[in-house]
């Protein structure tokens, strides 16, 4: 074989060639349970712990074979624990680890990663603009696949130099985008959930990780929403849409969809939503109910729809009167959740004072 060095594979264990290198070693779970491999199991447990606690794994490259072998083992721990949000967090943690190492590489190595592993259409350049050094031009399709999820204004395509289909990037920016690709790739590694019988040395570590996950769970996943919709907590965009509905203002599709899907996700009963709609419009009740039930996931494709993100609402002109809190959220439900939490805290304090 000999196409990839052990060190290179240890740095980036998700590379196709790195996976092949591990496969060649042909290790079984029994092999790994042997005390001689204890370091591998420990490091694997360590990688998952860091994902849970910090969301970010480090690189330990002094012992490259242990580092390399710990990756498939940590993947396995994640699959055995089986929880979706851990999988997401682990993929992110490992991707951050990889991008940290990548940032120290030269431009050619970074370009090779993009082109070979992720089919990027990428050009190496040397350009100086606004006092910054740019090293890459990435085809807009590859750029958008990775950057359209980012929120900061500097990532919006409109704030980048786009020329002949290519987007100009600095090294750190290119690495950040690669991090997204790597995160998706690692998420695929752990996508399956496996209930396998682990040998004792692996099972005891998996149990420890399970306990660690439980201890950190509520910190990581955010709380439930109250059953009845709290009107004081609804975001300005939804409020505007609601007021418009009451006034009979003819709303566009996106505004209606945002309002309906928000109310459903905030816990309003479908009957109440229907009643509200038909009381102010001349919509047919049966058709209105059908549409609302469709959004709620009770009909058709049975997908329950969540409201669009703030960015989408802005594009379609549905964002109105954003306030201070809006600057900190990317989704109307996040706004609602935060306001509900604040409200509940205030309520609790008020009740305490009355006692």
């Amino acid at each position: 074989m000999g196409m990839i060095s052990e060190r290179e594979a240890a740095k980036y264990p998700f590379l196709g060639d790195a996976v092949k290198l591990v496969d060649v070693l042909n290790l079984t779970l029994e092999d790994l349970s042997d005390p001689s491999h204890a370091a591998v199991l420990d490091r694997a447990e360590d990688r998952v712990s860091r994902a849970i606690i910090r969301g970010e794994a480090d690189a330990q490259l002094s012992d490259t074979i242990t580092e390399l072998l710990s990756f498939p083992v940590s993947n396995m721990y994640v699959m055995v624990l089986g929880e979706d949000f851990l999988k997401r967090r682990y993929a992110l943690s490992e991707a951050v680890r990889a991008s940290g190492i990548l940032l120290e590489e030269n431009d050619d190595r970074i370009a090779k990663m993009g082109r070979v592993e992720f089919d990027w259409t990428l050009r190496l350049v040397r350009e100086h603009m606004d006092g910054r050094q740019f090293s890459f031009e990435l085809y807009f399709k590859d750029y958008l696949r990775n950057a359209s999820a980012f929120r900061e204004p500097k990532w919006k395509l409109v704030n980048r130099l786009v020329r002949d289909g290519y987007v100009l990037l600095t090294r750190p920016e290119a690495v950040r985008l690669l991090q997204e690709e790597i995160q998706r790739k690692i998420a695929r590694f752990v996508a399956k959930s496996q209930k396998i019988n682990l040998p004792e040395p692996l099972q005891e570590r998996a149990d420890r990780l399970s306990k660690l996950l439980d201890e950190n769970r509520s910190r990581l996943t955010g709380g439930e929403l109250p059953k009845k919709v709290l009107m004081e907590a609804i975001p300005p965009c939804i409020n505007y849409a609601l007021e418009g509905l009451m006034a009979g203002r003819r709303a566009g599709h996106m505004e209606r969809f945002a309002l309906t899907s928000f109310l459903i996700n905030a816990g309003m009963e479908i009957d109440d939503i229907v009643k509200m709609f038909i009381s102010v419009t001349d919509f047919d009740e049966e058709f209105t109910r059908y549409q609302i039930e469709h959004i709620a996931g009770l009909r058709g494709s049975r997908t329950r729809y969540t409201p669009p993100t703030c960015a989408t609402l802005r594009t379609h002109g549905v964002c109105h009167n954003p306030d201070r809190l809006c600057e900190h959220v990317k989704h109307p439900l996040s706004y609602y959740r935060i306001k509900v939490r604040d409200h509940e805290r205030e309520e609790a304090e008020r009740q305490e004072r009355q006692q």
Partner: protein
Amino acid sequence: MSSQAWGSEQYVMGRFKSFYSTGAARVDPPTELKRREFGFLSFGGKSMFRHIGFDDTPELRKYMQDYSPAHSYFSAAYYEDPRAPMSSKGWLGADLVFDIDADHFDLPCQKVHDRWMCRTCGREGMGHPPDLCPGCGKSTYVEENWLCEECLNAAKYEAQKLLDILIRDLGFSPSNELSVNFSGNRGYHVHVRSPSVKDLNQMSRRELVDYILGLGLEVEFQGFTSRPVGGGSTLQESGWRMRSAQAIYDLVSDLDEGSASSLNMGKKAFQKLLEDRDAILEVLMESHPSGVLRYVSKKTLDALMEAAVGRQASAIDTVVTTDLRRLIRLPNTLHGKTGWLTQNVPIDDLPDYDPLVASIAFKEGTVRIYIRRTPEISVAGEAYGPFEEEEVELPMAVAMFILCRKAGRVAR
């Protein structure tokens, strides 16, 4: 007289059928015909006939001849099985499509030829209906919308700006990858057919929409940095760096005392702007744009950019482009609200293209119609009307236009 009589539907249907008896042969099939879903609206129909597929072009054309629909559409998307219900069609990808509709703009000519009436209190007005009726506070209206050379030119201008962005910024080939259609009513559609866009997801399409609208543009990323940095004028560069500088340049050049009201800035800032106008223009032409911030504050610059960005952006419809399963009009088919053709326009011909000449379908004959009310209408260089409660004999194209808009009926 019931409103059903207005528009003489049977007559219009007959004309459409007669048109399609030969016109069907010129209906333009989209690429990968077998992978597209088709949809058709019949006259007086409320819902679309969807989930229709054709195995070859003759089959499509025969359908057009047999049914002569009021409106004909095909999907921007490609499907494994276009005839299957939505959830099982098997989405394979979609063209990138853009819709420019003058109806969405605010144009002075709309105050002349568009009319609204509040359904609740009867209050009337010209142009776009207001958000809330000034008479009763409600928001449901009856609208009579027409079009004219001005609306069509405005739409064409937006289409040209869009094409410029698609070609220069995004690198699409005008000869191979882009096609432009007159919509058959008040605007243009641009289709991008390319492997680089076929499997773009919704978020990516939304980001492209934002790019074309200039939405979210922040001046510090366009060269208007807070600290002076090396470099030259961005007017000759590319992308939004060039466009934003150009937009500010044009706006500042055009400023006069009357501009103050349309700008989001205080009186003092505006006066200073007028005083420093020449210096600002010189900076934009000769030096790095960060130099502008020697004369205006960031706040003022943001206000200028807000007002200027529309000059360079293209006013595309946001919903159409982000809809992965959009149905769009089929070229060389009739538009049931006008009697014009949805017509492909070669990009090089666009500057001189006049839809009111080129997209006429009903070229022969005249017909006598009784007209309720129309503004002045211009077709093929001739002006007709305005008409009100009168009977007139008109060339077929003009009469069909009025009938399709339900503003007249065939005289007895």
